[in-house]
């Protein structure tokens, strides 16, 4: 298996891009990534996307984007794993290069969520759950996470402001990221007074609906030198890539408060890379909701069960903390264009590892971990990257 490296990244600022269609925002990210890699020769484009069929009436999305991006006669396929589509697509790109099937692969995560009404988008997001036994009962995606959070607070006797630190950290970091949707810190008061979406999840616990696209160019590590153009210090190597699943329905989990798929995929990634949790310089976790940050930290080796929220309360998650998370804003502040998110995480990890994260740069970033979650924990993909 060939080792695989990232030699170019691109991203469009996350936000409401009314003036641009899905093909335009994807092209923006792809063109930037190819420009950085200094190549026009591409063998394949894998697109991570969740909602183009249900919200935009546009399937065959990878071929549409390849066409619009001037990539002809290449392989193109869309990869869908709900909100984990972005990282799932990266895994496919990784396998394509690792196998020797392709030499230059572009992976692009893209989502256009603001073309439709809020209720349509909410219904679209609920397609990540079991249509017949979850969505049919009117539970939204926020609602599923709220069910987890409510039970977590009950079972572990957690105070109602316990999760504030995750949101405050995300916004503080996002304020330093020019590509973030929200670039302003928030106060504890703002968190405490935020309106409820689905109790106990308030607006500050939840990531926003938005548009975005992020891309990376993958080549064999042994050939990476050819592509690095001097715009940046060097290629970033994919040290580990793993995916695991769990029951699609929250109600079918053995323990709805434990992210088994995060545990399994992170353990695989640790073994593949020889990296331990203590070696990780920063962790781009899937903070779609603050409760997910706590559960991810618990399943991935940073906290015991029921204690993940202590890391926020103790500010161990800040840029100078024990395990910096959401270093450029995370899903909460940078935004969560669902199928694109996994690729934003990777693009930001590359920025950190290159030392190009600007004001959001954390000190001595040598190993970065990213984790992308689909559904209420049903698909979880972990990557470990090194400079």
């Amino acid at each position: 298996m060939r080792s695989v490296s990232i030699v170019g990244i691109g991203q469009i600022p996350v936000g409401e891009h009314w003036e641009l269609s899905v093909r335009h925002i994807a092209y923006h990210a792809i063109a930037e990534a190819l420009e950085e890699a200094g190549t026009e020769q591409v063998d394949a484009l894998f697109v991570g996307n969740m909602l183009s069929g249900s919200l935009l009436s546009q399937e065959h999305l990878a071929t549409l984007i390849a066409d619009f991006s001037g990539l002809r006669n290449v392989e193109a396929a869309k990869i869908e794993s709900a909100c984990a589509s972005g990282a799932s697509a990266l895994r496919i790109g990784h396998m394509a290069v690792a196998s020797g099937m392709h030499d230059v692969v572009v992976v692009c995560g893209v989502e256009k969520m603001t073309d439709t009404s809020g209720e349509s988008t909410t219904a679209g997001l609920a397609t990540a759950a079991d249509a017949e036994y979850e969505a049919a009962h009117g539970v939204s995606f926020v609602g599923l996470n709220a069910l987890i959070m409510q039970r977590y607070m009950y079972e572990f006797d957690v105070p109602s402001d316990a999760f504030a630190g995750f949101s405050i950290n995300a916004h503080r970091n996002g304020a330093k990221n020019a590509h973030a949707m929200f670039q302003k810190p928030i106060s504890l008061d703002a968190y405490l007074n935020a309106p409820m979406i689905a109790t106990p999840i308030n607006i500050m616990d939840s990531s926003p609906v938005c548009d975005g696209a992020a891309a990376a160019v993958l080549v064999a590590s042994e050939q990476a030198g050819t592509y690095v153009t001097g715009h940046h210090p060097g290629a970033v190597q994919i040290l580990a890539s793993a995916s695991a699943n769990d029951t699609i329905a929250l109600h079918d989990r053995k323990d709805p408060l434990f992210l088994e798929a995060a545990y399994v995929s992170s353990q695989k990634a640790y073994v593949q890379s020889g990296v331990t949790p203590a070696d990780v310089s920063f962790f781009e976790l899937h903070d779609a909701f603050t409760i997910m940050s706590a559960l991810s930290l618990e399943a991935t080796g940073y906290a015991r069960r029921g204690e993940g929220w202590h890391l926020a309360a103790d500010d161990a998650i800040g840029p100078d903390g024990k395990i910096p998370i959401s270093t450029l804003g995370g899903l909460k502040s940078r935004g969560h264009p669902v199928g694109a998110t996994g690729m934003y995480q990777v693009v930001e990890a590359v920025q950190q590892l290159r030392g190009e994260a600007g004001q959001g740069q954390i000190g001595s970033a040598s190993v970065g971990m990213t984790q992308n979650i689909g559904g209420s924990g049903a698909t979880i993909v972990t990557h470990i990257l090194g400079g």
Partner: protein
Amino acid sequence: MSIASLWRTRQQRYSLQGEICPECHQAIFPPRDVCPHCSEAAGPLHTMSGRGEVYSYTKMFNVPDGFLAQRPYTVALVKLEEGPMVTAQLTDITDEDVEIGMPVEMVTRKLREEGDGGEIVYGYKFRPVLAAAD
């Protein structure tokens, strides 16, 4: 849900019809081809009692298309006494009523105004079990 899907799941929605695994004897809802507990072929049909307790709940203010008329409403994870957990709305409640551990029982209610073909969709919701006077 399409008419075909509504038809296929009618026994589940109207009467919580599940299964008992012939191998490990655990209750399963909804029916599956493979038992999630022991991976053997799943077993004969079994209708759940409809009694259970609230494992978790949420009051939803932002809701999906098709559920706007009922907003806000409360959705719960209900642990059935046979073992399986289900996702369902709570009904016949006030906000103060709801708490984790609360005993509930299944009732049939309108789930959403109309499906894709304009049909009205019925199915299970849960309401509090009134404690016997003591």
